Each structure stands twice: as structure tokens, then as C-alpha cells.
């Protein structure tokens, strides 16, 4: 039997690997995508004061600490049964929106975008931010850096630090913002909206107007008819910070909508002995293995899922783009994974609009940003939408507010099964009778990038973001080719 | 490595060698500790003998050792000996470490193997430690010849005079308008019954006139900076509203002053004074004070009678408090005592029944200069009592109030009994728990009283009431007591009750102690350095105590302590400078973050905080070397000489070097 090791991260980079097994005919029998490490937050957070969770779980991932900070903060609010004052909520969501804009920008321009802007067949060396700059023009580079700077500035103003913010505590925040800061944030926000629109325009000019790219997007390789998960507000519009979790089926119809505290009734995690990472799935549908369809509990949680799971966007400009998105791709739900990139840009616009909406609210500078908890702490769940998927933190405490139990289901984890499936599908379609099609590399790479998997988060156990390097060895173990990706 | 360490194991005759295999230890150290710098290891019969010391000195020179470890007896016995030996060989004495394998090993263990094993551990610990010892030199600080005496009672007066007479300057601070203290309020003094004023006033006058004494009455110490030999003391002089340079003390002002004020201080509430007053005729200084709380001018803005009549225009209503700073080398605290407040024992009826008196009230009552001119009469001012009851131990020897004995009450009670008897012929009862007459002439005085027919009832008074059960109790105060000698409850009707209120520490003694950086006992008396061998010194160099501030005592004892404290101070002044052990803490200013955690960690006020630089600093002369701040500094910014972290951590390693062989048996080597 022949064995292909796609070693996404060689022993050197050492953060995971893919095994593809072929049968005697040289066709794929099975693929394994392995995550090799565990840091054990669920264990060592026990015994800690619950107010430290937003600071400890930050360190799960340095790429999206804001997401963990928020989910943790919301969980601690719930633990203390305290209602965060309106200003407090707005400040947190403002920080979060700015973070979203930054994160989506980085991914689109540095990681995902190049595939389209340069074209999937362009040499690896050109498929990067520099390539994009060359093609779209120099100023784009400056804009991207500017966007990142602005985002970090807002995070620093409200969160206290550029990386690992520290201001969210049970009941709100340790500080508010003054008028001067508000003005600064507003001006940056307005710039962000223009930037988002610019990005969407670039996308439609370069990608949508190009038939090859469009076919690529709607092509079958990247299609999985799975369930889709996302957080929605009272009007079933996409929301990153708060709301109910909504899941739609492969048919696009609402399958279930539940409050964060009820997540455990709907989500379970499947265990495989060959990886440290678990596979979440819809409990009441059940685990049927790495297959799609309405009988399989596998679901996806990405920008695309959020759009699929919602009835629209809460801000006007983004709503318009939302409608264009579905009309272009033939209605809801969209199953094609590569559409995630487009969806990401629509979210970028929404984030920027929301950013301005919040920062122009008269109450945003109010000193009423924290409510002192009075109830006895017990148990609480906090859910936010991390850029890479629905992020769930669940804590139990004793009456002193000391953590006694922790459960975490982290963004990318949600997509572990779908990613594995995409790998298998790419392999299936491109490895025929032992012939390894060169295209496999790009295809797998693009599949990965679409999900923008952050394995720093993924396993809240894995070191760092993963430099996805895929090496294919032939039977003799000679490397055929190399590709890589990382999420920031 | 550059260390060249010599190890010397003492046999101490058989004291050590009898239990510890010293040869084995010495051999082991020479071999196993060579890598730590041990170049020579010897054992010798008596290391402390001159021969033993010469042995070390010889090695220091010939082997040019730069560190020495002696394993012998307790450092408390011979640390100095061996340090001096090293000094004799031009090796800094602090590079010598003495570890105890006698008191802590051979003398307390019987199992020879175990004792030998432990000796090795101890030596190993000493070697690891000595590597980190540093060259040190004792700090010498000069002594300022002037002295501060706080409290102008008899103890303070005595101390001040002794030092001033010896030719050194004294600042005597008293918070009342006049010196004299409690003694000035007394009529007679036991057991000799000579008049208190007659023996005190001359001393007061001497103080007032002494060229070497700066008398600061109506003044209080606000702040004490510095350390032994170099204190800077800030003193607040409260406004007298009298220009003392013009005042002659003629007395017209208090004659003319229309405002009568009840005198609760000197007259103990038995009499009045004016709003401008001297506490008593023989007051020193003679200048009056205007009591701005009661003075009509200060209350209403009019009157100024005193000003009108003052022949020398010495009145100055504009006068303000003055703050001065004086430099002194030593301080004597003689701030005395407060009287126990008899109201705290309601069943004794004080302040409920007119004719229940405290001892101090009675002192004034029978004082010729007092409100009644010395006539012992009831509060009505005329009736002479026929029976008087004197209650001892009021608030003393009682776990509900003060557990201790106030020392003076017995003799005072006897004195009162005598005076009442002598002046009124009344029948006098003494109610006592025990009669204590330890000092010279006291027992004789007691016998005299017995002969005078004073009645003694042994028992703690339960109650003083005005409730009559039988006709003869009508209109009397009835003392309810169990007479423990006859084992009977008794009710004794009297006309007057005198409560021998006990002595207790000044209400503000804790603050004063903090101000001067000394400590208080549980009862807030100031703690002496040693109860027997150093009764007037305190743990704080340069601060001494005298009189009742240290604990209840009578006049002779107070005077003796005043003189003793003076002698100690004079001794220091004569030395001109003082050497301090170089075991000190220092703060690395670079590393200090000014978090101020150490700031309240030093009971000697050795740590000061510089607001503008935001760093703390240790004053080496004030520092006593306890090391608490070193252990407490979160930044690790404080280091200590003599007991540095490196020394101690290495000693731990050394002691545990053998921990593999946990069983307490020797290593075969």
C-alpha cells in the first residue's frame, strides 16, 4: 500500500501533519489531519479567580486574544449574573469590531486574497502581499498597514494593550474612553469604512469580473453541504459580540436557535486517538464521520457560515453587499468554501460600519462602564464569534468565584471536521491511480486558506499560528513540492 | 576559583571529640569541599586557645587563606575570639565564619555516627556560606553632646540636673505650663512624711536657673529624625500669650482676671484657677499662661483685663505657636503616668457620691496650698469626717482593669490614713488585698500605723453604696466588703471614701513610643532593653527611659532611674563616638521602584522615602540589621551585609549537600 505524507508542518515547524493513504489502485482510502499538542487550559484554569479568565485565556492565542478576552469576559458576567451597563457593552463591541476589521484585512490581503488577485496558478513566490501590491498598486500596501495600525490603536485605547487586552472584568471594564479618544476612534472608523468598500470593489473588479476565478469559486471541489453556525442579533442579523447561536441546515432553513447557555444541549465533541484536537458536531444530528449532508452533525463556522446562518447584515452598506453576494452565487445557502473570502470582506465592511455606529453613540464616553456584581457567582457561558468561528467559554465557580471547571470550544475547532473533509475531497479528486496531480498542492492550500484556520486557537493547546507547510513525498520519500500558509 | 578557605575543627577537649569523629570530619572537608575552595582542613584540641588561634593565623599567612571556617562552639561564645584572631593575621574579621558543632551537635546528640554526619553538613554549610562573606568594617558615628529630656516630673528633673551639672547641655521639654509633675501635687511623701513641695521646689528652681538647661515648658515634641548621636528633634512651643522677656511673674494678671476655671489638672478638680494662670505658686518657670479655650477675650473678643493691668505690657494675644528644632545625641523619656479613672468601677461610687475621693483629689484636699488650705473636710467644705475608708488597689491587681500592682498604693494608703488620723482624729479603715512594704523604712511606717490604731480590713471592696439597711448607716457611705481574715461579709458605714486609684501608662504612650521608635509592653509601659541588667536603656540606641514611664514606681525609684539614665547618657557622651555592628541593609536606588512596601516594615524608622525621587533609602546608623526589609522587598532591591541572600542560600545548599544519604549515618570517605 502506498502512503503519502502531506506534512503540513515538517518536524521542524512541527505543528500538525496530514497523512493520505492510498489503496493498491493508488486511490485515496483515507486522510488524517493531526494536531500534535495540548497546553491544558481546561485543567490549569481550575483554581484561578474567575476574573482572571479574560487574562489567562488571552494566552490561548496571540493572533485573536481579543476574541478570547471577550468570550471570557462575557462568561464571567454570566458567572456573576451581572448585567453589563450599555456603555460597557458598547466599548467591548467597539474594541471587537476594530479587531475584526484588522484581522479580516490581514487575512484577505496577506493570505487569502493573493490566490485570487494573483490567480491560483501564479507561482507561490508571487502569491503574497507583495504580489498583490504589484498588481493592485503600491498604495494598497500602505492602506493595509494603515488598517492594521488603526485596529491595534483602538484595541490599545480600549483594551489597554496592543496584544492581550486587559480591561474587561466581570460586569464591564476597568476604564472608559474620553471625548478626545472617541474622536480619534471615529476618524479611524470612517477611514476603515472607505477601506472596506475599496477592498470589496477590488474583489469584484479582479475576481467576480473574471470568469475563471468565479468558476473556481463555484466549482465542486470546494463544496460541502454542511450545517452552518453563527451568532445573530434580535433580528437574526449577523453579530460578532452578542446574541443567539443560530444553525441552518444544508437546505438553508433554520435548524436550531439557542441561547449561549444551552450550547451543551446542541454541541458535542468527537474524539479520535490520533490527534489532540476534538471534532465538534451537532449533538442532536449525531457524529457520522467526515461526511456532509443533513444526516451528518458536521457544521462549519466561518464568515460564510455566519452569513448563511443569518437573515442579513445589521448595517446598510454591508446589507447591500450581502444581497449582492447571494444573488451572484445563486441564493442561500452558499456551500462553496472559497466564497468565504468574499463573505469575509462583507464582514469587514460590517465591522467598520458597526465601529462608527458605536463610537458615535452619545453614551460611549459615559463613565457608566462597569456594574459591580452583587449576586453569588455560580456558572456561566460566554459566546462570541471569533473571526474563525463561534467561540465558547464555559466556567463553573465556587461561591468565592474561584473556577472549579472549564469547558472551551474554540473558533477553528468548529471547522476541524470540514477542513479534514476538504482535504480528503481535494485528495480524492486529484489523486487518481497513484498519480499525484501537482494541482493538489494549490487546491489543498486554497482549501486551508479559505478556512483561515488558526491552530493557535484551534486547540487552545497548540503553539502559535500554524505555518501550514505541505510536503508531498513520493513512495521513495523524496519531497515533490512545498506550500505553506499562516494566519497572520 | 579564587577562594582559599581554611577549615578548623575543634575537639573542645572531649566536649566535641567525644561524640563527633573530628578527624573524619576534617579529612572529609579537606577532600570533598576542595572544589569549593577549601585548601586546608585541620582539627585541633582547643581552637580557642592561643595556640589554636596562632595555628589559624599561621595558615592565613603561609597558605594565604582568604576565608576561614571554624567549627567549634556557639558563635555567641567565641565568634569575636576567632574574628579577632583573623584580624590579627590581617584578614578582615568578617571573612571568618564560626559554626557550632558543640551546642548544636556533640552536646545534644548521642549517636556518634549521626553526630559526625551532621557535623559534616554543618561544616559544609559554613564553607558554602563563607565564600559569600564580604569584608566589613564597623560604622562609627559621632555623638552630639546635648541631650533631650522629655517630661519635667521628678525623674526628668533629676536626669536633667545630673547631665547639666556634668557640664553638658540639656533641653527639658514639658507639656504643662510648669515642671514638677505629679510630685508637685502631693502634700507629704511616704514614709518620711517630709513635705513634697519642700524637697521638690529647690530642684525645680535649679532647673529653671541652670545655665546648661534650656527649659521648654508648654511644649511638645512633634518629630524625631536621626539616630543615636545625631537626633534632630522638632519641638512645638504652644503660645503662652505672654512675652516672657517682659513678664516678671508679679501675678497681677491672674489676680485681675475675671474668669474662673475649674482646675482639673493641678488641683485635680478640687479647686479653681483663672483663665490666665500659673498652675501653682512655686511654678517654674514663673510666667503664666493664657488658657485660650476659656479666656473671655478669645471667646468673646472683649475683656483684656490682664492686658490693661499688666505693669510691663507682657500680654500678647497675637502670639502664635513656635516650632523649633534642636540637635541632641541622646534622649531620655520621663513622661510619667496617668491615674486610673475610678469611674470605670461604678460600684465604688466615684462621681456618683460626693464624698468618694480619688487619691489625687485627697492629696490636694490635705495640701496646705490646696483648695481647703489643708483642712480635711467633706465636699460641703465644712463637715469633718468621723470615719474614713481607704480602698486599695483600685483598678490594680484586677484582671478586669490592670493586672499589675501599682506599687505605690499601699504606702500611699498608709500615708493618707496617718494624715486623716493626725488631722481629724477620725476612725480610718484600710481595705487591702495585701500590704506590700518592700523598701527601706516602709515596713516600719506600716507598724507605726498599726500602733496609731488604723483599722485594716483584708478584702477586696465589693461596693460603696448610700443605701442604709440599719439606722446607723443612715446618711453614710456603706462599704461592702468580705473580711477574708474572719471570713465574713461586712458593711462598714463611713463619711468619706478615698480610692487608691492605680497608675497606668499615659493615654498617648503608644504614639510617643512610635515617635521615638521604641516599643511598649502589653500595658503600654515602655520596654527596657533588659529588665534586670539594662533597666533604663531601650532597644533603640540613644533612647533611654526613666521613672513611671517604664512602670509604676515611687519617688525614690524614679529619682534613681533619672540619675541612672543620666549616667548612661554621660557615658555615651564621653565616648564621643559609637561603633555600630556592620550588619546593615542597603537599598539599590536603581532597582527600588518606590512601591513603599518596606516603608512601614522598620520599627526603627531607618527607612525613609524620598518623595521626589520616589525611592526609599535605609539610614545605616538607624538600621539595626534585622533584615526584615531585605526579606520583604518585592523587587529584591534591598541587600544586607553579614546575612546576604547569597550567604544564606549557599548555606542551605551546603547543609543539604549530603541530603542523598538521608539516613543519619556517616558517609564512608
Amino acid at each position, binding site marked *: 500500500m502506498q502512503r503519502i505524507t502531506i506534512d503540513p508542518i515538517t518536524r521542524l515547524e512541527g505543528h500538525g501533519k496530514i497523512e493520505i493513504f492510498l489503496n493498491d489502485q493508488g486511490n485515496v482510502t483515507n486522510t488524517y489531519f493531526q494536531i500534535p499538542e495540548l497546553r491544558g487550559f481546561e485543567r490549569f484554569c481550575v*483554581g484561578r479567580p474567575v476574573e482572571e479568565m479574560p487574562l489567562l485565556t488571552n494566552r490561548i492565542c496571540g493572533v485573536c486574544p481579543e476574541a478570547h478576552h471577550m468570550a471570557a469576559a462575557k462568561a464571567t458576567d454570566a458567572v456573576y449574573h451581572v448585567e453589563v451597563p450599555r456603555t460597557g457593552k458598547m466599548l467591548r463591541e467597539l474594541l471587537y469590531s476594530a479587531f475584526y476589521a484588522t484581522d479580516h484585512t490581514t487575512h484577505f490581503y496577506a493570505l487569502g486574497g493573493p490566490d485570487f488577485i494573483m490567480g491560483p496558478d501564479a507561482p507561490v513566490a508571487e502569491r503574497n502581499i507583495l504580489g498583490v501590491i504589484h498588481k493592485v498598486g503600491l498604495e494598497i500596501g500602505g492602506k493595509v498597514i494603515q488598517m492594521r495600525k488603526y485596529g491595534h490603536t483602538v484595541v490599545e485605547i480600549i483594551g489597554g494593550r496592543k496584544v492581550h487586552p486587559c480591561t474587561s472584568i466581570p460586569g464591564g471594564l476597568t476604564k472608559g474612553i474620553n471625548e478626545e479618544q472617541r474622536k480619534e476612534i471615529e476618524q479611524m472608523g470612517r477611514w476603515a469604512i472607505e477601506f472596506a468598500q475599496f477592498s470589496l470593489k477590488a474583489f469584484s473588479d479582479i475576481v467576480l469580473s473574471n470568469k475563471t476565478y468565479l468558476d473556481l469559486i463555484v466549482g465542486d471541489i470546494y463544496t460541502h453541504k454542511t450545517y452552518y453556525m453563527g451568532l445573530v442579533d434580535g433580528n437574526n442579523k449577523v453579530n460578532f459580540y452578542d446574541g443567539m447561536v443560530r444553525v441552518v441546515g444544508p437546505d438553508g432553513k433554520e435548524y436550531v436557535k439557542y441561547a449561549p447557555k444551552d450550547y451543551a444541549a446542541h454541541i458535542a465533541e468527537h474524539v479520535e486517538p490520533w490527534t489532540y484536537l476534538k471534532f465538534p458536531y451537532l449533538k442532536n444530528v449525531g457524529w457520522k464521520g467526515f461526511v456532509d449532508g443533513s444526516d451528518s452533525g458536521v457544521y462549519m463556522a466561518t464568515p460564510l457560515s455566519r452569513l448563511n446562518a443569518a437573515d442579513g447584515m445589521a448595517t446598510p452598506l454591508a446589507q447591500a453587499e450581502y444581497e449582492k453576494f447571494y444573488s451572484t452565487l445563486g441564493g442561500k445557502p452558499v456551500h462553496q468554501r472559497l466564497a468565504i473570502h468574499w463573505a469575509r470582506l462583507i464582514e469587514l465592511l460590517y465591522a467598520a460600519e458597526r465601529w462608527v455606529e458605536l463610537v458615535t453613540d452619545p453614551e460611549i464616553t459615559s463613565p457608566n462602564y462597569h456594574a459591580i456584581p452583587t449576586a453569588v457567582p455560580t456558572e456561566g457561558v460566554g459566546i462570541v464569534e471569533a473571526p474563525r468561528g463561534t467561540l465558547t467559554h464555559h466556567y463553573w465557580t465556587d461561591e468565592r468565584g474561584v473556577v472549579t471547571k472549564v469547558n472551551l470550544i474554540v473558533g477553528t475547532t468548529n471547522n476541524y471536521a470540514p477542513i479534514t473533509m476538504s482535504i480528503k475531497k481535494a485528495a480524492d479528486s486529484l489523486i487518481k491511480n497513484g498519480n499525484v496531480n501537482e494541482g493538489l498542492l494549490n487546491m489543498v492550500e486554497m482549501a486551508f486558506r479559505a478556512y483561515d484556520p488558526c491552530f493557535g486557537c484551534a486547540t487552545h493547546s497548540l503553539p502559535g499560528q500554524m505555518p501550514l507547510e505541505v510536503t508531498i513525498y513520493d513512495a521513495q520519500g523524496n519531497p515533490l513540492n512545498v506550500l505553506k500558509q499562516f494566519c497572520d | 576559583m579564587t577562594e582559599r578557605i581554611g577549615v578548623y575543627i575543634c575537639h573542645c577537649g572531649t566536649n566535641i571529640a567525644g561524640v563527633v569523629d573530628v578527624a573524619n570530619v576534617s579529612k572529609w572537608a579537606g577532600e570533598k569541599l576542595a572544589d569549593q575552595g577549601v585548601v586546608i582542613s585541620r582539627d585541633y584540641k582547643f581552637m580557642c586557645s592561643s595556640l589554636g588561634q596562632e595555628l589559624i593565623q599561621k595558615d592565613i599567612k603561609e597558605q594565604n587563606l582568604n576565608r576561614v571556617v571554624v567549627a567549634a562552639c*556557639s*558563635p*555567641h561564645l567565641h565568634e569575636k575570639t576567632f574574628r579577632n584572631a583573623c584580624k590579627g593575621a590581617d584578614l578582615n574579621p568578617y571573612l571568618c565564619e564560626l559554626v*557550632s558543632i*558543640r*551546642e*548544636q*551537635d556533640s*552536646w*545534644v*546528640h*548521642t*549517636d556518634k555516627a*549521626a*553526630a559526625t*554526619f*551532621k557535623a559534616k*553538613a*554543618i561544616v559544609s*554549610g559554613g564553607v558554602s556560606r563563607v565564600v559569600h562573606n564580604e569584608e566589613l568594617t564597623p560604622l562609627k558615628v559621632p555623638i552630639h553632646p546635648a541631650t533631650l529630656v522629655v517630661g519635667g516630673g521628678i525623674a526628668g528633673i533629676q536626669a536633667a540636673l545630673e547631665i547639666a551639672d556634668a557640664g553638658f547641655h540639656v533641653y527639658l521639654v514639658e507639656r504643662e505650663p510648669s515642671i514638677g509633675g505629679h510630685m508637685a501635687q502631693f502634700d507629704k511623701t511616704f514614709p518620711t512624711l517630709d513635705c513634697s513641695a519642700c524637697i521638690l521646689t529647690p530642684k525645680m528652681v535649679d532647673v529653671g536657673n541652670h545655665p546648661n538647661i534650656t527649659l521648654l515648658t508648654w511644649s511638645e515634641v512633634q518629630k524625631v529624625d536621626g539616630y543615636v548621636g545625631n537626633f534632630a528633634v522638632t519641638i512645638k512651643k504652644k503660645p503662652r500669650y505672654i512675652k516672657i522677656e517682659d513678664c516678671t511673674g508679679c501675678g497681677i494678671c491672674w489676680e485681675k482676671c475675671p474668669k474662673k476655671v475649674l482646675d482639673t489638672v493641678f488641683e485635680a478638680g478640687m479647686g479653681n484657677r483663672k483663665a490666665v494662670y500659673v498652675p501653682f505658686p512655686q511654678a517654674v518657670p514663673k510666667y503664666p499662661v493664657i488658657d485660650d479655650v476659656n479666656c473671655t477675650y478669645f471667646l468673646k473678643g472683649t475683656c483684656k483685663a490682664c492686658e490693661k493691668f499688666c505693669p510691663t505690657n507682657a500680654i500678647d494675644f497675637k502670639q502664635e505657636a513656635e516650632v523649633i528644632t534642636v540637635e541632641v545625641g541622646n534622649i531620655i523619656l520621663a513622661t510619667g503616668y496617668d491615674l486610673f479613672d475610678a469611674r470605670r468601677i461604678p460600684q465604688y461610687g466615684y462621681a456618683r457620691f460626693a464624698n468618694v475621693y480619688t487619691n489625687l483629689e485627697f492629696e490636694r484636699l490635705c495640701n496646705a496650698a490646696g483648695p481647703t488650705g489643708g483642712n480635711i473636710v467633706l465636699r460641703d467644705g465644712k463637715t469633718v469626717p468621723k470615719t474614713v475608708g481607704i480602698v486599695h488597689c483600685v483598678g490594680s491587681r484586677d484582671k478586669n482593669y490592670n493586672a499589675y500592682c501599682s506599687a505605690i498604693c499601699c504606702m500611699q494608703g498608709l500615708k493618707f490614713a496617718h494624715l486623716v488620723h493626725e488631722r481629724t482624729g477620725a476612725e480610718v479603715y484600710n481595705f487591702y488585698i495585701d500590704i506590700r512594704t518592700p523598701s527601706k523604712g516602709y515596713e516600719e511606717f506600716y507598724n507605726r500605723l498599726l500602733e496609731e490604731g488604723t483599722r485594716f480590713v483584708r478584702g477586696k471592696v465589693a461596693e460603696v453604696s448610700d443605701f442604709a439597711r440599719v439606722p446607723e448607716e443612715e446618711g453614710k457611705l456603706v462599704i461592702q466588703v468580705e473580711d477574708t481574715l474572719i471570713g465574713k461579709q461586712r458593711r462598714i458605714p463611713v463619711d468619706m471614701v478615698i480610692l487608691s486609684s492605680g497608675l497606668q501608662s499615659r493615654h498617648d504612650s503608644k504614639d510617643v513610643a512610635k515617635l521615638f521608635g*521604641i*516599643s511598649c*509592653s*502589653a500595658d503600654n509601659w515602655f520596654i527596657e532593653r533588659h529588665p534586670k541588667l539594662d533597666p533604663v536603656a531601650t*532597644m533603640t540606641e540613644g533612647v533611654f527611659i526613666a521613672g513611671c514611664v517604664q512602670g509604676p514606681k515611687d519617688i525614690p525609684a524614679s529619682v534613681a532611674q533619672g540619675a541612672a539614665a543620666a549616667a548612661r547618657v554621660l557615658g555615651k557622651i564621653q565616648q564621643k563616638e559609637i561603633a555600630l555592628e556592620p*550588619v546593615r541593609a542597603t537599598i539599590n536606588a536603581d532597582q527600588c521602584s518606590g512601591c513603599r512596601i518596606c516603608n512601614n*516594615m522598620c*520599627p*526603627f524608622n531607618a527607612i525613609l522615602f524620598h518623595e521626589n525621587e520616589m525611592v526609599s533609602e535605609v539610614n545605616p546608623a538607624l538600621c*539595626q*540589621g*534585622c*533584615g*526584615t526589609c*531585605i*526579606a*520583604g522587598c518585592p523587587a529584591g532591591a534591598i541587600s*544586607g551585609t*553579614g*546575612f546576604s*541572600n547569597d550567604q*544564606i*542560600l549557599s*548555606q*542551605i*545548599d551546603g*547543609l*543539604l*549537600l*549530603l*541530603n*542523598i*544519604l*538521608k*539516613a*543519619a*549515618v556517616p*558517609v564512608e570517605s
Partner: protein
Amino acid sequence: MTEETKPFEPVIIGFTCNWCSYRAADMAGTARIKYAPNIRLIRLMCSGRLDPTFVFKAFAGGADAVLISGCHPGDCHYVEQNYKAMRRFHLLKRVLVQMGIEPGRLKLLWASAAEGAIFAAEINKFVEEVRALGPLNWAKPGELVSTPIMEEVTA
């Protein structure tokens, strides 16, 4: 190696203050009062000098227990520093427990310079308590590997 066959003999590091507890030890000595040889003393000027680092260092170095001892409350040569030692002791104990070290392995003992007999008796008591606890077990909960000091000596 015959260690296995030997009964467990605890090693205890004791920190004493210069003025009271160390003199108590001297007193025990001059009075020839016998006690267990398992303790090894380190003299500090004051129990207030006791830095928790010393205690950790002792445990990390292989001690089975640590004794902290100073003047009786109120009798501190440095007025009140032994109270600081007491406060640190209380917090230290809590931390040790979280570190998986039994509270019984840390003892605070007040001993005046006159209390040689008491000092000796308390040490004997402590040694037996620690003997009952057994060797400090690094396997729980950290599963840390054994101390390097062993090699140092055998080498």
C-alpha cells in the same frame, strides 16, 4: 546503595533568630538536653529575615521539612519583626499546600532564650511528625524528576 534498606530519616532545615531561638538551641546544648539529629540550623538575625525563598530553596534542595523559629510575640529583639515572620508563615503555608507540599512540613516555633528544653522537645515532636509524613514526594503533583544534588554527592 543500601539506602533502601535504611529506615527513613527526615532532613529538616531550621531557621532561628540570633536572639531567642538560636540561644534556646545553645541553652539546650549547655544543658546537654538530647534531641533528634535530623535538624540543621541556620542562624538569622531575626525571624523577620526569613525570606520565603529560603524555605523553597530548602525543599527544592531535598529537605523534608522546614522549621521557622523566633522570639515569642511581643519579645522580638527588633520590637515586632517576628510578627512579620508570622504573617509570612501563614501565607507561605497556603502556597506550599497549592504546590502539593503537606502543611505539616512547615513549622513555626516561638522559643525564648531560656526555653532550651522546650526547643529540644518541639524538635523531637516535629521529627516524628515528618517521619510519619514520609519523604517529600516530588512525584505529586508535579511529577518532577529527582534532584540533581544526588549526582553531585555520589560523583
